[in-house]
């Protein structure tokens, strides 16, 4: 029992940082990310006798994290929209804004506006560098869904970086 408990403590210590940063990129809010990771660890702790025998417990934890993150995505998206609306006090001069804002800032802003599932695919793929198959496992979806979602996500980001008068449509 002591060894199992020590294994769990080590698992928490080793994975907390990456899980927290991943959660933060998925939900775009540090407070919620901390809550998510804590909920994830509580789940893992309850199942630890089984999880610790898995080849990669962190993959299991990641699946729980993603599932929880996307489960509450609707509430979070709504809350962020409300916050965004309350903060938009001045009209923005689009032309000047594009000249002044660094492209990476625009990319970050575009990422924040992506649908949660789309952003999650991109985070798992481009932040954690997970193979598509592992992304699919974490999100409990097919490989094809991961590929198409990633492709559409990148297209949306690319579109967001173009001048606003670009008539091409934004994939949804």
């Amino acid at each position, binding site marked *: *029992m002591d060894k199992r*408990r*020590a294994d*769990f*403590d*080590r698992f*928490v*210590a*080793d994975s*907390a*940082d*990456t899980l*927290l*940063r*991943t959660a*933060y*990129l998925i939900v775009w809010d*540090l407070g919620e*990310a*901390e809550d998510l*990771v*804590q909920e994830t*660890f*509580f789940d*893992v*702790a*309850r199942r*630890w006798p089984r999880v610790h025998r898995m080849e990669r417990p962190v993959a299991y934890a990641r699946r729980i994290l993603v599932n929880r993150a996307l489960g509450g995505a609707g509430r979070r998206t709504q809350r962020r929209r409300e916050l965004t609306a309350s903060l938009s006090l001045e009209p923005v001069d689009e032309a000047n804004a594009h000249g002044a804002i660094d*492209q*990476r800032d625009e*990319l*970050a802003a575009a*990422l924040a506006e992506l649908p949660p599932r789309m952003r999650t695919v*991109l*985070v798992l793929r*481009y*932040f*954690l*560098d997970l193979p598509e198959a592992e992304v699919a496992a974490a999100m409990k979806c097919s490989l094809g869904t991961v590929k198409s979602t990633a*492709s559409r996500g*990148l297209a949306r*980001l*690319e579109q967001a*970086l173009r001048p606003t008068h670009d008539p091409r449509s934004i994939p949804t």
Partner: protein
Amino acid sequence: MNQQLESDLRAVLRERAGTVPGTAAARVARVDYRPRTRRLRPPVALGATALAAAAAGAVALIVSLGAGTSSAFAGWTPTPTKAPPAQLAAAAAGCAGSPTADAPLKLTDTRGPFTFSIYADSQSSATCIKGPSNTAVHASGSSSPVRVPDDRILLTPAHVGSYQGPAFSLIDGRTGAGVSGVTLILADGTTVQATVDNGWYLAWWPGAEQVTSARLNTSAGVVMQNVSLADVCRSTAQSGSCAAKQGPPGSGTATSVDGGNAVRVPPGSGGSQ
């Protein structure tokens, strides 16, 4: 798909992940998640902190690797490992605010969940350590320009032992221009491969085992160097700190490679930087 976009996306994600304060993950990791059942004992305290001070060269280190003493070095490997982007981002974030954070990054050494980084400019250097318990460790000191022969390395006399908790040893320093690989041989026969980059090398290992020799891959082939504490005391003129050599873990020790002929040169006289 646009490779530039993918590259920018990785950078943006790393950058944003790097804004998560180091204390946040530590806070998350400190929570006791185990279910309350009769079979489980009260939680073991996490985050054991170690404090280390290294003598010589005005080097001062504050070390806190945390995560409990028994597993403080879990995941350590004798050869450097490839760090996932998230780990590097976490290290960069944890090192922000270190004493010489403005100095350029010279080298990053990763072994399992541990990331050591050297920041240095012509005046000072710092070693920043990021362990899995999310506690950053900083080392800072002055770094006078040195000239290192092409096929030799200079070992900064900065063996580090812990003050509380398990000991570990750290060596970093400059390499000659022809050195592409460094393997340290310890007194117990084990070997530790250093990370070599940018004219610097770094290696560390759990415990306080002394270095006895170093195997260097150079442009002229493999070169062996023996270790002599006396040599580094001469070459770095650190007789005061060298007097405290060979102390127990935690006292700070000093080591260098014999035959390195590393010569301290005055600032501005063209030393290797």
